[in-house]
């Protein structure tokens, strides 16, 4: 199982801040989310400006995932 986390407007859209998902890589996380999320939340998640982190490092590929890994969906950030 991997932990999938959602932040800010993505958490609002998904309706929870984290989910436990059985997945061997990031593509499988997407496949499961596509099935379980409503279409509006799914569309928000797939927007170009959403970044994905695995164990707190931004990824641009389809990394293999191990039990206990943490996948996070990050909408556009702003601080200061």
């Amino acid at each position: 199982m991997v932990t999938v986390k959602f932040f800010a407007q993505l958490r609002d859209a998904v309706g929870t801040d984290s989910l436990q998902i059985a997945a061997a890589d990031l593509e499988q996380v997407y496949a499961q989310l596509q099935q379980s999320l409503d279409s509006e939340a799914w569309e928000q998640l797939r927007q170009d400006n959403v970044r994905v982190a695995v164990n707190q490092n931004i990824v641009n590929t389809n990394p293999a995932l191990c039990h206990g890994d943490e996948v996070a969906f990050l909408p556009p950030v702003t601080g200061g």
Partner: protein
Amino acid sequence: MVIQQHDFDVAKIYDTMRNQAGSDAGAIVTFVGLVRDRNAIAGDGSTVSTLTLEHYPGMTEKSIASIIDEAQQRWPVPWVNVVHRVGEMQPSEQIVLVMVGSAHRDAAFAAAEFIMDYLKTKAVLWKRELSEAGERWLESTDQDAERSKNWQQN
């Protein structure tokens, strides 16, 4: 660098840096960001009552540490401190502190500005604003993006 919910005391942080730097420092630049009561981004001027900052523990700290690292690679600024608050804040409250110490003021001014510009666009933080117009998540402005881009070219 610290992420915290509670307010910070600028004088204490300044004293700490002054003691650390000793007589090697010729300048300490301090920037404090405050919560404004008007929304400037949407341009509708609606009155803001609460600003909520959300973070991703661990990754937020890492993102700010890497901004500080980059500043220290660009300028001779041995002393840098950033305090960023998270949670709920009301207008006029302190939200962020950037303090930079250097032998000379030009490096300290430049590094402080660089760090603030990057905090606006690269720090892993999210802002939600509650105003008369309702609740909304904020994004960095085009102006913020432009300022960050300018640093990448220089």
